[in-house]
């Protein structure tokens, strides 16, 4: 997908005015509440008419004031998952799901309802009216409805809020698989940096209607490390799980990682907070921590009042954080050696 946007829109005191050009299959939109994320989405989908400017998708004009082009939403074939579900109250769950699907010629139907329904956990709802669904159930039906309409681009406005963590991390890999398999590009709005990093490659950051950054999700997460108490989340792809004596071990690159607290360890994506990595100058003797990695310091960077430490653990990248004092005590310098100690319980399985 190549999206070229340059738009102006005024609402009272709010003024959207930004242009950007992105290429990529999974683009995120990030920004504080009221920064114009939903406004952008509505303009792209053709639901809100910009004051001026243009929108080009893969070179095709969807909107262009100069050329007097303004395709109607159903001509644009851009699927939208709204911030609120907006289900059709007069149709049941099933007919809501199939609304777009049924309007597609057979050969353009890419996503199979029978495969999608179990992933979204919708089986028990199939005969139900949508007016009595719970908040999370509504959100899942809305997500399914848009996916099944097999659009040429999907815009999602915080589609995963209201879902419990378990369901969320079950849905994310499926979504990614579907998008990849059928080549449906994605524009993803979220306040969760973690979701953003899992779902997108590139992020547009908005501030008060202006584009303030266009960077990778990881870079964005690093930049924001200092301002949240959660630190930076290292995403680690672990493989080949084995269980010994109630303790799971997995391969992480060339190394072995011991993890606990995962009932049934499987290969997949795990999260590790930068706060959970303790650095030692030398190998400590006996410790309760199960993982000790010898690493090289790649670089140090400021992250609020703390110092971020980017590490290279035999080819794998890890980000840790230490207080300024510690950086001095440990004599951390780029290129120096250090031991990263991680407790087995610090890993969180995502999917």
């Amino acid at each position, binding site marked *: 997908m190549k999206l070229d946007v340059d738009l102006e829109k005024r609402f009272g005191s709010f003024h959207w005015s930004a242009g950007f050009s992105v290429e990529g299959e999974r683009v995120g939109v990030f920004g504080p509440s009221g920064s114009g994320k939903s406004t952008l989405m509505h303009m792209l*989908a*053709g*639901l809100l008419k910009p004051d001026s400017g243009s929108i080009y998708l893969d070179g095709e004009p969807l909107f262009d004031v100069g050329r007097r082009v303004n395709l*109607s*939403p*159903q001509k*644009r*074939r*851009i*699927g*939208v998952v*709204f911030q*609120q579900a*907006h289900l*059709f*109250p*007069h149709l049941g769950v099933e007919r809501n799901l199939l*609304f*777009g699907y049924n*309007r*597609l010629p057979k050969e353009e139907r890419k996503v199979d309802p029978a495969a999608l329904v179990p992933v979204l956990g919708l089986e028990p709802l199939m005969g139900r*009216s949508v*007016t*009595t669904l719970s908040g999370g159930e509504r959100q899942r039906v809305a997500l399914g*409805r*848009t996916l099944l*309409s097999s*659009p040429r681009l999907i815009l999602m406005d915080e589609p995963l809020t209201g879902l419990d963590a378990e369901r969320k991390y079950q849905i994310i890999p499926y979504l990614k698989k579907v998008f990849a398999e059928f080549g449906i590009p994605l524009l993803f709005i979220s306040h969760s940096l973690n979701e953003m990093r899992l779902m997108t490659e590139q992020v547009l950051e908005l501030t008060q209607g202006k584009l303030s950054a266009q960077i990778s999700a990881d870079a964005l997460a690093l930049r924001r490390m200092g301002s949240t108490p959660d630190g930076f989340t290292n995403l680690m792809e672990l493989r080949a799980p084995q269980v010994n004596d109630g303790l799971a071990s997995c391969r992480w690159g060339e190394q072995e990682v011991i993890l606990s607290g995962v009932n049934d360890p499987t290969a997949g994506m795990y999260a590790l907070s930068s706060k959970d990595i303790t650095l030692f100058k030398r190998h400590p003797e006996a410790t309760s921590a199960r993982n000790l990695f010898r690493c090289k310091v790649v670089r140090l960077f400021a992250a609020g009042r703390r110092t971020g430490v980017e590490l290279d653990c035999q080819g794998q990248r890890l980000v840790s954080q230490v207080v300024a004092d510690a950086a001095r005590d440990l004599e951390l310098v780029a290129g120096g050696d250090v031991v990263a100690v991680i407790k087995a319980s610090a890993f969180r399985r995502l999917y």
Partner: protein
Amino acid sequence: MFEFSPSDWQAMLLSLQVALSATALSLPFGFFAAYLLVFTRLPGKALFDGIVNLPLVLPPVVVGYLLLLLLGNRGPLGGWLSAMGIQIIFTWKAAVIASMVVGFPLLVRSIRLGMESIDEKLIQAASTLGAPWYDTLMTVILPLSGRALLAGATLMFARSLGEFGATIIIAGNIPGVTQTIPLAIYDYTSTPGGDRMALGLCAVSVTLALAVLLFNEGVINRIRKRGER
């Protein structure tokens, strides 16, 4: 209680027939007129709105005269129709037309109110899911106006049952042919001792209308129960 004459029974049947036909025939027009008024940006919208509401403002007798001018054998439309062998005036069809015209503003206003309360977001959702406007009209707007359509239809039906002024002018007051309940009541009041029978016909009219009203409420309650939370 009341001993109705054969022509009274005919009047009741005819009233029912006229009210039902008028309601059924008006619904699609009313729906479409409301759609135009609510969802489109026609240039002459205000004028159109005015014309739709005209029959409400004018006394029904005047509406009857205007219809007579239009549909009479010497009228522009009536002349053409009678050339085609279609006779409107003094037939029950004229009574249907009178009821349709007089009740139309009520119908349109009901449907409009319903349409105006449809969440615009749903219409947007339908369009992003690939439904063109006519599809959205039939699969989203129509069902979501259901309650208002029903209310409008009930209104129309009830109004038709009571329609007198326009009907007597273009359909005439011919017992057994165009004499509906209100016209029969009118005749009874010209007959010594006819008041009792007039009252009886009133009661029939009220019963019919109440039945439709209760039916309407019943359907609405069922719709609502479906959506209870």
